């Protein structure tokens, strides 16, 4: 039987197991929307701005590990997703974006709502397609999903002209994909694994430096087993938080610019670093020439371009992190049996314990009757939920405090824009996660600046009964920029003071959500508890100390041990 392009698209999404799409209609996708009611297994979430749609698809993907899907119209619909596409690209998140396009005869004519979205998104997608021939549509969708989730995951965009949506074609969904230019390498080299095992056994001061790749490849269990069996301390990047239990004695905390004293000093004193699924971002390494300068560097990544990009690597391994960890655990079992194979680590672990006790992540407690400390809000969330929730964050101070004062124990429990640092990400991402897990507690730790960037999605959350909790650490500032101005720009608070702000409680109520405000520390826990128990979307507006800073902090370009402490 022949189907229209629109039907073929929706059939294909069904074959890929897509259960929800986040979208916004428009002239160039009206044919697809016309068909959506005929596919009851496909839930469509109507957003209020296309940036919301792409972040929701992204949040859904981060929380589940499945491909997130977003559907928007041509022109402005498509360009509104670009920030979100770049966000997903930087953090290697599998997302498929379907954009409508003007009919093929009009392409290139500056038609109404025409934009070359394939050209625009070329540098921020893993791959993208313009489908001009209905006969290639099913194959293209198949390839898009395959590319998005294989190898190093990433966003893939499919631009679908209106006339192709209307044309008829026999539907055959391909079983396999063959792309001669794309062959990700998954299996680790056996000899290299052996070498790593031997190095690891001999290392006196080893550290595992884990990144987002550990989470996207589901390597957490194997990594945790390795670390615990052979007493190897673990630190992680912002993207890696949750890949190792945050309450384990071997956990060092996050490393980098706002990393812990123990993590940064462990890296600087390590004689062996096992970098797994991480990419040596400048926020992690600080001054490159002094990063882990005493260590033999082992780097495992699925993406060959990540290796030898920023730092010299002694043992490069292109492989899937989980397959590597499985292989290394096996090899370690073998190598560690050899006589005197493993060097005792007691001294190293004692040193680390000392660092951790002497310099934990901390803040100056609030003075009695003084303003609430934002860090204490994150601590309260942790205490009340016992860590059993999904946290998303906006970007800035709120993001760093959410990273520092919450012990993530499981992968996919922290959703945050690490690479691109996109303000406005957290709330729609939380909605995406909530759509995947309606019964879980999903909390967006926000700032009063970031939350206003996608606040319109409150309507979406209310409309679909997605009871996301927004906790605003309201300091009346664009806090992170203000912090830099305070520390490095003579306290010149140019354009960082948010003098006029909405009443977030009334705003929540205006949208049909619930609003709470906390101004005194004594009310904090009770109000959070009440909000978490409220079965609908909530804003908890917590008025916090306006000039609190994120510490520790490594000034940009300095070595990661040159930390400003509290």
């Amino acid at each position: 039987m022949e189907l229209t392009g629109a039907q073929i698209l929706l059939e294909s999404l069904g074959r890929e197991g897509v259960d929800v799409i986040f979208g916004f209609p428009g002239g160039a996708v009206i044919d697809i929307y016309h068909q959506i009611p005929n596919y009851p297994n496909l839930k469509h979430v109507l957003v209020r701005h296309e940036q919301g749609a792409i972040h929701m698809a992204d949040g859904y993907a981060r929380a589940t590990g499945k491909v997130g899907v977003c559907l928007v119209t041509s022109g402005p619909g498509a360009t509104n997703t670009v920030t979100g596409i770049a966000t997903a690209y930087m953090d290697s998140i599998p997302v498929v974006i379907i954009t409508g396009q003007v009919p093929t005869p009009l392409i290139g004519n500056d038609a109404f709502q025409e934009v070359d979205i394939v050209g625009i998104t070329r540098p921020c997608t893993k791959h993208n397609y313009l489908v001009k021939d209905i006969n290639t549509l099913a194959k293209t969708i198949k390839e898009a999903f395959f590319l998005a989730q294989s190898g190093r995951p990433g966003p893939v965009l499919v631009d679908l002209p209106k006339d192709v949506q209307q044309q008829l074609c026999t539907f055959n969904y391909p079983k396999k994909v063959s792309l001669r230019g794309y062959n990700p390498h998954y299996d680790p080299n056996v000899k290299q694994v052996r070498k790593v095992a031997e190095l690891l056994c001999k290392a006196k001061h080893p550290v595992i430096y884990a990144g987002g790749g550990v989470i996207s490849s589901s390597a957490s269990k194997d990594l945790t087993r390795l670390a615990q069996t052979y007493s190897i301390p673990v630190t992680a990047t912002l993207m890696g938080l949750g890949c190792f239990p945050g309450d384990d004695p071997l956990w060092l905390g996050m490393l980098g610019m706002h990393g812990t004293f123990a993590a940064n000093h462990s890296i600087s004193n390590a004689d062996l670093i096992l970098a797994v699924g991480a990419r040596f971002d400048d926020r992690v390494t600080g001054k490159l020439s002094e990063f882990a300068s005493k260590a033999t560097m082992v780097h495992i990544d699925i993406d060959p371009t990540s290796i030898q990009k920023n730092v010299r690597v002694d043992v490069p391994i292109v492989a899937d992190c989980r397959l590597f960890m499985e292989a290394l655990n096996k090899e370690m079992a073998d190598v560690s049996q050899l006589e005197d194979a493993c060097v005792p680590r007691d001294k190293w672990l004692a040193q680390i314990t000392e660092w951790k006790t002497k310099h934990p992540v901390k803040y100056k407690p609030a003075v009695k009757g003084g303003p609430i400390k934002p860090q204490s809000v994150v601590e309260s969330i942790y205490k009340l939920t016992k860590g059993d929730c999904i946290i998303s964050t906006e970007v800035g101070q709120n993001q760093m405090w959410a990273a520092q004062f919450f012990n993530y124990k499981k992968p996919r429990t922290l959703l945050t824009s690490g690479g691109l640092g996109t303000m406005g990400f957290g709330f729609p991402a939380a909605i995406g996660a909530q759509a995947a897990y309606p019964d879980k507690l999903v909390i967006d730790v926000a700032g009063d600046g970031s939350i206003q960037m996608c606040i319109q999605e409150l309507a979406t959350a209310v409309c679909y009964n997605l009871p996301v909790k927004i906790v605003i650490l309201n300091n009346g500032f664009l806090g992170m920029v203000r912090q830099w101005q305070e520390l490095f720009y003579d306290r010149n608070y140019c354009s960082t003071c948010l003098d006029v702000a909405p009443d977030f409680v009334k705003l929540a109520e205006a949208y049909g959500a619930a609003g709470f405000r906390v101004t005194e520390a004594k009310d904090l826990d009770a109000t959070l508890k009440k909000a978490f128990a409220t079965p609908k979307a909530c804003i908890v507006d917590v008025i916090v100390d306006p000039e609190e800073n994120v510490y520790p902090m490594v000034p940009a370009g300095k070595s990661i041990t040159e930390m400003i402490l509290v």
Partner: protein
Amino acid sequence: MRHILSVLVENEPGVLSRVSGLFSGRGFNIETLNVAPTLEDGVSIMTITTTGEEQIIEQIIKQLRKLVTVIKVVDLTEVKNVEREMMLLKVAAEEGKRAEILRIVDVFRCKVVDVGFDELTIEVTGTQDKLIALINLMQRFGIKEVARAGAVAMRRSMQ
């Protein structure tokens, strides 16, 4: 160091933009770029010459391989290769200078492909050095126009 990269690509719309965008977006340098179809349907070959430190060249090659539409990348600098570039050169050739220009054309084994009242168009093929030498020699007569094709190269049979 200068490297010659031979890049086999799917011949589809946008592939050139993917490759050139990769170079500009990541701050890599393209010296010359040549694209043409191969004998295989739907496959084109790009020859790119670029300069950079070893680490940069390694990144360029890896980044090229990462493109879905790139089938194969070979760094011809790593093997014995034969490299050629073609150039058309329009040079001022008034009476009295024409003979000397033609002598140089002869020495360089070039061809005169077009003649005007006071100018000659010369076709020359060779290595980059040879092309530059010819340009240098012709400069004193007055070069009116230059069109260069960019290098093409192949691995030599005997390594």
